[in-house]
């Protein structure tokens, strides 16, 4: 008698009662995996004042939603969230557990994985089932693609960034079972989230920008970085970065594009003074046109773009900005 494969789980996330796009994307992908495994998709959502949200989850592909809906769960409370999820996981024995790689997800996932003594993979840019129906997590590494599997332990856990998988078309005809979850009363009480403060992000959000200009180490210094910022402004683009630029302090972690950062799908991507490291380039998905400006003719970035300019970006950008402005003026006048 064949053992029934456990469900494919998605730990969904909501901020101010808005379900995050990444959660819906993961439910979409979970649906595909579940069909191959001949099992169901179950979603865990924790928060407070959640009424309408389950509908979205079903419409995205969930068969069952475990809903924790209480004031104590309004903010991400590590002890409670971890306790609820691990207790439920021990009961329901999911085959796979997917979590969005948000700040919460990146903390929650390893806490759950360690409690369940199972394997976890980060920065996946694709999830498929291999010939043994084991989840194959593909992550970019060393200029290539590494596949990581968790052959024995269950659930097989993975965190994925927003934008790796498409947001599924909602099927509003879908419904499912809602299972209410209780707030645990036996938590140690050693850690408490007191408040969460967020600001509206300035400018165009990277994930939705039609044009993205990304800068890297080639900016050289803050002055060079500003020139790249000027370029993004003149194009009305969103400004992204690579890790070296963040480490150098020229820009915030929030602007970082790549496997550990944001995923973007612009019409036009211009990579300035960056080497085209895979960890960054995988963050650029489905761009119509890709351009690179780099002073090193041998840079690997030139193998991954449509148009290349070999030049010192600090010298080239002012000239480029001139030409763009001239072009824009012509557009206005004709």
């Amino acid at each position, binding site marked *: 008698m064949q053992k029934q494969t456990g469900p494919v789980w998605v730990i969904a996330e909501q901020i101010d009662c808005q379900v995050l796009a990444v959660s819906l994307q993961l439910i979409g992908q979970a649906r595909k995996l579940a069909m191959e495994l001949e099992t169901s998709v179950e979603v865990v959502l924790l928060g407070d004042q959640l009424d309408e949200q389950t509908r979205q989850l079903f419409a995205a592909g969930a068969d069952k939603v475990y809903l924790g809906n209480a004031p104590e769960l309004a*903010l*991400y409370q590590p002890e409670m969230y971890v306790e609820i999820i691990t207790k439920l996981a021990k009961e329901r024995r999911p085959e796979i557990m997917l979590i969005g790689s*948000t*700040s*919460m997800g*990146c*903390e929650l*996932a*390893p806490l759950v*994985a*360690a409690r369940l003594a*199972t*394997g*976890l*993979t980060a920065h996946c840019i694709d999830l498929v089932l291999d010939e043994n129906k084991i989840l*194959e997590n593909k992550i*970019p*590494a*060393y*200029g*290539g693609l*590494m*596949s*990581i*599997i*968790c*052959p024995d*332990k269950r659930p097989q856990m993975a965190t994925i960034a927003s934008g790796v998988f498409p947001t599924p078309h909602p099927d509003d005809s879908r419904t499912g079972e809602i299972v209410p979850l209780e707030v645990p009363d036996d938590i*140690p009480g*050693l*850690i*408490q989230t*007191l408040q969460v*403060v*967020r*600001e509206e*992000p300035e400018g165009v959000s990277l994930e939705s920008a039609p*044009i993205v200009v990304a800068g890297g180490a080639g900016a050289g210094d803050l002055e060079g970085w500003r020139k790249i910022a000027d370029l993004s402004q003149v194009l009305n683009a969103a400004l992204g970065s690579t*890790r070296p630029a*963040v480490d150098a302090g020229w820009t915030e*972690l*929030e602007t970082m594009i790549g*496997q550990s950062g944001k995923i973007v799908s612009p*019409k036009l991507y211009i990579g300035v003074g960056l080497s085209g490291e*895979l960890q960054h380039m995988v963050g650029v998905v489905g761009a119509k*046109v*890709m*351009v*690179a400006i780099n002073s090193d003719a041998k840079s*690997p970035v*030139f193998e*991954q*773009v*449509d*148009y*290349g300019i070999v030049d010192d970006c600090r010298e080239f950008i002012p*000239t*480029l900005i001139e*030409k*763009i402005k001239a072009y824009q003026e012509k557009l206005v006048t004709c």
Partner: protein
Amino acid sequence: MLKIVVCVKAVPDPKEAHKIKIDPVTKTLIRSSVPLVLNLIDKNAMEAALQLKEQLDAHITVLSMGPPPAGNIVKECLALGADRGYLLADQAFGGADAYATAYTLAKGIEQIGAYDVILCGMASSDGSTEWVGPEIATFLKIPVVTRVKELVEYDGQWWKVKADVENGYRLVQVKLPAVFTVTRELNTPRTLSFSGIIKARKKEITSWGINQLGVPEETVGQKGSPTIVSNLAAIESKREVEIITGTREEKAERLVQKLADTGVI
């Protein structure tokens, strides 16, 4: 006296890490001789420990799991101002994923003895999972706050810290002992000083293997790792680049023309 343990990692120098490539035929890594350096964000963890030592009464132990060359980065941390160093080095620890790494480090910390605060960089520049800090906390059965970008209150049993979230922060209250993983925003790390290097002469580094930790082989290294690498493949690019040539002016003009023609601007 506040007892701090800082977990640090020796990683391939990020400036040269691109030289490590996948051999498309054998599907293994071609490691050229890229030197190992202290993981950049771990410097922020060290700096946090040093600032705490300056403000409160504290003792800093540095712990790292890695091959013997990793001993140099432990020494570097002693030169920065840590008091004591431990290196977990054994062939048995090799090939560990984040889970086994965290487990081994947690065992090391237990062996070190009493601790109040464990500091780690948020992620390493090579693996970059962000898992090790939280998993250490789980194995030690203590709380963790990840992505700490500011210490708000920190002179008692209960600390208040700000953790980084998208476009803002999370204010967290936590009881010691606890693990904190830190971001680059937390502080500006100091550089090595000559007198620090001199003082480090008298500081001890102890190396522990699997026997000293007293753990079974199946719990560490590759054997103790729930995940394994099943495949390494080279990536084929689907784009063919056109390098635009000419004088600087010409290149800029031609690029703008191409972008206009393809309708993206």
